[in-house]
Structure formats: C-alpha cells, structure tokens
C-alpha cells in the first residue's frame, strides 16, 4: 500500500500544485473554451437547426468535452518535462510502483479536466439549458471516466516522446479531428455517409453521444438518439482497459 497509495497521492498533489501555480495555464484553460463557445454559438446561430435547439445550447456539452479532452491529454505533457528535468528518474528509482505513475497522472489529468469543466458551467444560465441534478450527476460521472481514458491516451504518447513541441504537434493532429468527428461540433445525422463511418470509428463519438444524452436528461430538450448507452459504455470501458494495460507495459519495460 505504501508503495502505491502514498506515491500516487504525492505525484497527484504535485501536479495540482503545478497547475495552480501557473496562472497563465489556469487563465488559458478557462478562457479558451469560453471564447470558442461564444464565437461558434454566435457564428452558427442563424444557420443551425437541430431538434429546434439554439446552437449555443446544443454545442455546450460538446465544449465541455473539448475542455476535458484538452485538459486531460495536455496534463500528461508534464511527463516529458519531468523526464527532461530529471524528476522522473527520482520516481523510477524509488520503491513506488510504476503503476503509481500511471494512476497519479490519470487522477491529476481527470481532476484538472473536471475542475475546468465545472468552471465552464458558470455559463450554463446563459444557455437556457435546464440541467437537472440527475443529468448533472450522471453526465459528470461519465465525463470523469472519459477524462481518465483520455489521460491514458496522452500518457502513452508522452511517455514515448522526447520533446514538448513534438507532443503538441502530434496532439493537435490527433485531438482536433477526434473532437471534430465526435458529434460534438455538428450532428452525426447530417454528415455524409463516409463521414458517419469515420465518426463511428472514433471512440470520442460514443463518449460524446452518451454525454450529450445524459447532460440533457430530464430536461425538456430531446436530444437526437445516438448509439445505445450500453454500446457507449462498453466502448469507453474497453478502450480504457486496453490503454491502461498498454501504459502498464511501457512503464514496466522502459
């Protein structure tokens, strides 16, 4: 226990201290999605129609997922910095289990993602969305699980990278399409046939569909039906387990 729980707590709390002590990171994390949401919502307001909803309201859960996606994955960039600064070698030579490195990153990435998403929720009253307590609880539970999965994805990529610039480049190449093709930015039903096929190969599509359904749960808004919830949960669980097992393998063998 002392080689797992306490080291995990140590590394998790250290990551949070880093985040809170970098004011520009906090401001950027909250400001960027706010700006994106305002501009997209205002820009597409007159040309968007889905379930009779305002585009700003429709896009709102998608922006929360965007926040979680970027926050979770970019939190793992600290692995590259820790390796460069020499901090990681101190962790590796300690009795802490290698799994504690994965868990600490998974928890810190998820904590930061959820905290940023909750901050963004301040804008909820301006959307006209009547979020229910049940919808809030279930959607954020779902968001927590999704953030863990996304942090694992970032962890694997960061563990094998030697430069933060390279990580940024690869992440932008991967993240933007993952989000654009998740159904968060535009409804799946309106997309062309091949695009729908591509979207269905994207795990974010299943996460987004379930998150949107849960977010509007119990409200007067009826969200377009996506894949069955059990399919989304299965995809999320399966991808998470695979990513975790692969993470464990790379930290134990490198």
């Amino acid at each position, binding site marked *: 226990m002392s080689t797992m729980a306490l080291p995990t707590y140590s590394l998790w709390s*250290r990551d949070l201290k880093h985040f809170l002590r970098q004011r520009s990171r906090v401001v950027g994390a909250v400001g960027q999605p706010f700006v994106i949401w305002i501009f997209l919502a205002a820009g597409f307001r007159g040309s968007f129609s889905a379930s009779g909803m305002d585009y700003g309201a429709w896009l709102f859960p998608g922006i929360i997922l965007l926040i979680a996606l970027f926050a979770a994955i970019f939190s793992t960039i600290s692995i590259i910095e820790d390796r460069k600064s020499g901090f990681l070698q101190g962790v590796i030579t300690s*009795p802490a289990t290698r799994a504690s490195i994965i868990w600490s990153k998974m928890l810190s990435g998820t904590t930061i993602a959820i905290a940023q998403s909750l901050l963004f929720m301040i804008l909820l009253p301006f959307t006209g969305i009547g979020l229910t307590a049940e919808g809030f609880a279930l959607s954020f539970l779902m968001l927590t699980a999704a953030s863990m999965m996304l942090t694992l994805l970032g962890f694997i990529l960061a563990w094998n990278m030697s430069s933060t610039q390279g990580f940024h480049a690869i992440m932008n190449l991967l993240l933007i399409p993952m989000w654009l093709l998740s159904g968060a930015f535009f409804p799946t039903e309106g997309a062309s046939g091949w695009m729908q096929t591509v979207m269905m190969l994207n795990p974010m599509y299943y996460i987004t569909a379930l998150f949107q359904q849960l977010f509007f749960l119990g409200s007067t808004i009826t969200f377009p039906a996506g894949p069955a919830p059990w399919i989304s949960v299965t995809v999320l669980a399966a991808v998470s387990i695979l990513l975790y097992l692969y993470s464990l393998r790379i930290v134990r063998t490198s």
Partner: protein
Amino acid sequence: MLLVQNIAHTYAARRGAGTRALRGVSLTAAQGDVTAVVGSNGSGKTTLFRLLTGVLALQQGSITMHNASPRNARIGVVFQSPSLDPHLTAFENIRHHAMLYGLRLGRDDISAALLDRLGIADALDTRVSALSGGFQRRVELAKALLTKPELLVLDEPFTGLDVDARESFFSLLREVTVEHRLVTLLITHVLPLATRCDRVAVLEQGTLIADDAPARLLEDFGPTVVEITTPDPATLAAHLRTHGDRDLLHLREQTLLLRNTGLRDVASILDADHPLVQDIQARRPTLEDFFIARTGHAIARAEEELLAA
C-alpha cells in the same frame, strides 16, 4: 555491506551484437565508508549506477545489501542531473520525495540537526528554482537522507559545482556517511576527491582494474614522484635510462613521471638547465598518476567538470 558479484550488462542493439558495458565486475563497499567508483567516459560507471538503483535489470551476477536484495534496502540516490522540482519549495520537494518511499513527513519530523548540518534550514520555504547549484545539491542530499537509507549512491554529484561547493559537499558526505553508518558509493570523475575516499574502485572499458584503499593503490609510486615537462619525452627518457634503470612513466604528451624518486636523486643526472627540461617538480603521487599508469590515458572529464575547474 554492499556486495557486487560478477555483474555484467550488455545493451541490446537493433542490429548485430550489443554493447558490453560491464564485464564480470565484483566489488564490496563497507558501512561507514565512502567508496569512489572512477573511470573515464564509457567505462561502465553509469551502467553500474543504473544496476545499483534498479533502473536496469540484472543480466548476470548478483547485488546484495546486508545479504539481501537491494530492493529490500532503503537506497538514497543523488543524480548527476538534478531531480528536484523547480516549481516547488525545498521542503515540498523533500516531503513529496519521502512519500514516494511511503513516508509522511511533517516539518517536525525533519531533524533540525540534519538541516543545520546540511545548511538548508533557512532555505526550506524557498522555491528550488531560486536556490544556487550548491544549495540544490544539499537539498538533493537531504531528500536522499531523510528516507533513512542504508545505501547511498551518488552519480557525479559535483557536476556544476565550484571548487568550494565541491569541497563543502564532499566533507558533508563523509560526515553523514560515518554518522549514519551508510554504505556510500560515489561515482565521480573528480580524482582529487576520490583520493580522499576510504576505497577507490577503478573501471576501464567495463572491467574493474583496481579496488583498494587509495594509499595502497599508490604504494608502487613511492612517497614522492618527479614530474618533468619536456618537448621531447622519448629522447629525455632515453637519456635518463643511460643513468640507470629508471621507473619512468609517460604521463601526458609532454610530461614524464619518475616514480619512487625525489628531486635530489634526479638532479644528480639532470639539472634544471638541461635543454630538454622545461619544468621539473617533485610532488606526491596522485590517483590520476595511477589511472594513467594502469590505463595508458588520462581520465576523460565531462565538459561541465572542465568548466567548473
């Protein structure tokens, strides 16, 4: 006691045979002693360090600490490059590090005597990025010591330190080793400091070529040696040999070393005005003399070492 027996390590290559970094190395290090491991670049020092700290898995041989696996012992590690988090204070670094070892440390749990000894008591609340290199090294040592290690392994800890900071850090290291009955293994290029360790192990191309107390390693050199700087070492060596069987060593490009002798003895056959003599001096033998005598080359110094010197 640390007992390293017949360890070997080969780094795998993508194609062909791998690189053999260590070949059947055995050495011992006793409690309360500082044992220096010296060698030029590529001698296998870093591989030995990685095997001792568990970064690399053993391929051959065994490493035991007090007759058990070192994994069961507490190991304090000080790295060549700093392993501190510059965004945290010195105390936060120490506390987080202790937690990696399963220890919860509050301020009161840290011995004031140890902090005073390390000279960092007043720097605990300072962010590491604001501390000098010497202070950062002391915080590293505090981190390593506060987990109450039995084995302390330091990899080139003097890198980047000026001469005074080196001296101060080395003295501190000797004191804490004796006081805490540590087995301390110091991997270093700095031969003058290695000479002052209790024991010196010399690695060359993955093989241990010497392992003894420094005084014993230098026994063959006698109490004094004579170093002669000359533009033509070969001719001068031949000239000296015409006056008897001299214990000569070609030390560097333009330097000859005569072992087991003094200035008076050499002056009888070679005065300071001799055309081949640019400089002549008697001095005590050093570990560097021993190293050159055994390997045929000077110890390669890391760039930082040269800058610091």
